[in-house]
């Protein structure tokens, strides 16, 4: 499986990760241009460096990245392959967003990026630079739960709780864009999150209650 490559785009023919390859070679040139020694490869390396500079290439080793999370600039060093989710959880101690499917198919990792809900497991941290990122940790203020979190508690909207942080963030974002939803709209609007325990009824009620506490909910 590991050797299966994109037949339309791959042109190198080497097996990635095994012994010497252009790929491994490129690793050396990526950021630290000084690391180069082999004479035979000089030309390719020079060509690579020219493109690297103009097209802003970084990695594959760790690179410094600044993320704006819950209004604070946070500096962290990550490989380009690091997802936003793993960076939040493993490097920044922000563990509310959960890693469940890790494939963009469940919503447990939902965070808000520039005002829009996204799956953090499917965003590269390096790609999230310059964006306003909001996580569940940033929703509560002055030690008080956010109205959406409170409504989840009031309506018994969780069982095992694993999907809950993602659902709360998705609900908050949905209500930001739809302050006066109908129940049907809530159902549709939370269509990016799964709950294996089946707490949907409670979640929908919580969303409608939160809409009201947040000053909307006129169609509920």
């Amino acid at each position: 499986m590991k050797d299966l490559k994109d037949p339309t785009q791959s042109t190198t023919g080497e097996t990635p990760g095994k012994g010497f390859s252009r790929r491994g070679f490129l690793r050396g040139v990526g950021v630290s241009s000084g690391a180069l020694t082999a004479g035979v490869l000089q030309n390719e390396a020079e060509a690579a460096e020219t493109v690297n500079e103009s097209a802003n290439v970084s990695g594959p080793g760790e690179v410094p990245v600044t993320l704006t999370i819950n209004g604070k600039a946070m500096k962290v060093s990550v490989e380009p392959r690091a997802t936003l989710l793993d960076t939040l959880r493993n490097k920044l101690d922000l563990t509310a967003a959960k890693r469940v499917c890790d494939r963009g198919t469940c919503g447990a990792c939902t965070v808000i990026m520039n005002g829009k809900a996204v799956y953090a497991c499917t965003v590269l941290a390096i790609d999230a630079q310059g964006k306003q990122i909001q996580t569940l940790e940033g929703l509560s203020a002055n030690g008080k739960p956010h109205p959406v979190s409170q409504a989840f508690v009031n309506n018994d909207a969780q069982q095992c709780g694993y999907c809950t942080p993602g659902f709360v963030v998705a609900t908050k974002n949905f209500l930001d864009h739809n302050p006066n939803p109908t129940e049907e709209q809530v159902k549709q609007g939370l269509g990016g999150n799964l709950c294996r325990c089946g707490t949907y009824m409670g979640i929908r009620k919580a969303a409608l209650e939160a809409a009201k506490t947040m000053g909307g909910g006129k169609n509920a």
Partner: protein
Amino acid sequence: MDAFAYANPATLSEATALLASSLYDAQVLAGGTDLISLMKDYLLTPATVVNIKNIKELGGVAKGPGGLRIGATATFDELASSAVVKTEYPAIHAAVTGLTSPQLRNMGTAGGDLCQWPRCWYFRNGYGILAMKDGKSLVPGGENKYHGIFGGPAYFVSPSSLGPALIALGAKVTLANAAGKRTVDAAKFFVAPKDETTRGIDLQAGEILTEIVVPPAAGKNATYEIREREAMDWPLATASVCLKMSGGKVASAKVVLGHVGPVPVDSAKAAEFLAGKSIDEATAEQAGAAAVEGAKPLSQNGYKVQLAKVAVKRALLAVGKA
């Protein structure tokens, strides 16, 4: 996921230069909703990932004299909230809003939708585009409930919801590489693979899909989708139709089935049948029957024949009403 370098070009020419160099062994990154999962499963192992979201000329949804231009990096969310798309191209609007997950709509792009890889579970588990083992496809004798009824030798279904709608509307797709640009009919962009060297789309090494153009006044159009689950899944069968009417009768028709074959199925038979007729319950039903002529269901997906028929009928009736 293997480590890779990340390129963040600001212009199309920088991006195509990176893709042209074998040294970079690069893959295009748009919304990442498919690419990142493919890399996690080691189905793609690029040395470099080229982010195209910061290339301004690839964005936007706008109506101009040449029709509707959809930039490759326009998101499903942008398409869903476009008033022009909603009123003039309901076939696209329905295809886009059928994807209910706001997260996927916020991230997934139009170009990525056309270039996404098949979801066939044999492919996703490493058996290749034709799902071969010991010289034989695993699909006909295997778990084929979600596979094509118009397949062979490739049995996966084209996963793109935009594809059928764009074909029905006569859209064109533009592709660029380091040497220049070319434009193909959306219908020709999808190509049923005969072997492992192609994957269902006419995207050549080093190319970036730059934009989609849908011609103006394409006719009355609609998409009808049938899904097993309301959210977080692909449709089982869809139909996109576009009708040019004259005096209450169909002057010309396009009927395109989605998610039933390795490419969207543009049914000439249904189009022929509809020509000169007015749309009512009976003609809509007969057009559905014509559209599925020649279908070859597998052991577990005979139900898709009926679903495709009904999708055509309901799409036609939706247009008839509009």
